[in-house]
């Protein structure tokens, strides 16, 4: 049975080889004239500000976590999917119940706003951040003097 995987192993080796060859050739053939300006990250022609090793939105982590949770639930269904008819009605209703629970989870996340990526953009700014005349004017005066 495992013999069927031999071509796949070969294919993976060949695929890796092709990829390494393509990457290798580009480094080997092309000219090499580096200079400091060329080696800075591209930021539309401006000098780059800070590094890219910054913190980023926590929502990406949430999506990653949800993916693990829901994908494992999907994977659980594969053995059932292969023999739906053999397993019969009891298992079918069990799977339906399971999927209902999964969907409640998805609905909960939706209500919690996990999939809502423009929530901050829609909210009005808190009053402390709003630019008020009394605060703005003294600043301008100090700049002018």
């Amino acid at each position, binding site marked *: 049975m495992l013999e069927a995987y031999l071509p796949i192993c070969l294919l993976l080796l*060949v695929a890796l080889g092709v990829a*390494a060859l393509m990457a290798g050739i580009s480094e080997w053939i092309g000219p090499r004239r580096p200079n400091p300006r060329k080696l800075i990250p591209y930021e539309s022609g401006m000098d780059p500000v800070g590094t890219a090793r910054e913190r980023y939105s926590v929502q990406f982590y949430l999506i*990653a976590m949800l993916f693990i949770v829901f994908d494992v639930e999907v994977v659980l269904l594969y053995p059932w999917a292969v023999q739906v008819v053999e397993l019969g009605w009891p298992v079918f209703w069990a799977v339906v119940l399971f999927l209902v629970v999964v969907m409640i989870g998805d609905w909960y996340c939706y209500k919690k706003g996990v999939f809502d990526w423009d929530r901050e953009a829609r909210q009005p700014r808190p009053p402390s951040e709003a630019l008020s005349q009394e605060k703005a004017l003294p600043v301008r005066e100090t700049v002018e003097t």
Partner: protein
Amino acid sequence: MAFESLQPKLLLLAAALLALFTMAAYTVYFERRISAWIQNRIGPNRVGPFGLLQPLADVLKLLFKEDIAPAAADRLLHRLAPMISVTAAVATIGVLPFAHNLILADVNIGILYILAITSLNVYGITLSGWASNSKYALLGGLRSSAQLISYEIAMGLAVLSVVVQSESLMTSQIVEAQAEIWNVLRNPLGFLIFLITAFAETNRLPFDLPEAEQELVAGYHTEYSSMKFGMFYVAEYMNVVLSSAVITTLFFGGYLVPFGHLFMSDLPAWARTGLEVLSFFGKTGFFVFVFIWVRWTIPRFKYNQLMRLGWVYLFPLAVLNLVLVALARMLF
């Protein structure tokens, strides 16, 4: 397995690789020609007859360009990322049935293998974004990883509904189970969900946010040049070809010739195989055209729309579709 019995497989492997690279290269050419046609331009027509040698010229040009890695980049990962993308794309051809008994490895978990290998593409894209140490690249990589994993769930469920209908994970069995009626007719909603998620998984418009030019320059491959950029480019077009091939296999009868049961049994074996290969590549070519057609027709989604579509609409819809298909399977 003895070497003698492996020889036809080796031949098939070489042929499949050649076909994949040629199709990827000419998808680039046809994308440019068709986009030009849609936009009332001419497109590349200078290199060779009808510009047919354009892909070759592009590859040569890319090879002779300087390969730049930013000084602040993580050298190892920067080099590794495009290799992962290309490897993941190439390795997918292993379980695609090109004709009856013409398949590299007819393993009993074929469709799971496809899902597993195509998921590896996430690593290539995310690593390239992170390793470049550039803000545009990082944002592109992050967006892309979130997008790919979000749509993978709906894709898995759409595949699951096909598995319910064919009662097998083997790609050859899935094709054979469509001898009477194609899955697209038995499972239209599943096909629609799979098509949409396939667009998202290949980063094609309307889901090309990871490389949205107006916002992110080029997204995750901003800091790549020379053939390493070419590798991401080739991997993207290979993924278009492979997605089309998988759509064909899962929903459009794979290598089965339409109305083949009427005349196929009278033909000699070589003609049958030839017709089946033609049928497979013909259907795949049609879906490649659909990919290009949609790209030049539909504008890009916003990121919040993308996320909502994936998790709030497609995921529950895919679950509903799975239950309906399983119910139909139980009743009839």
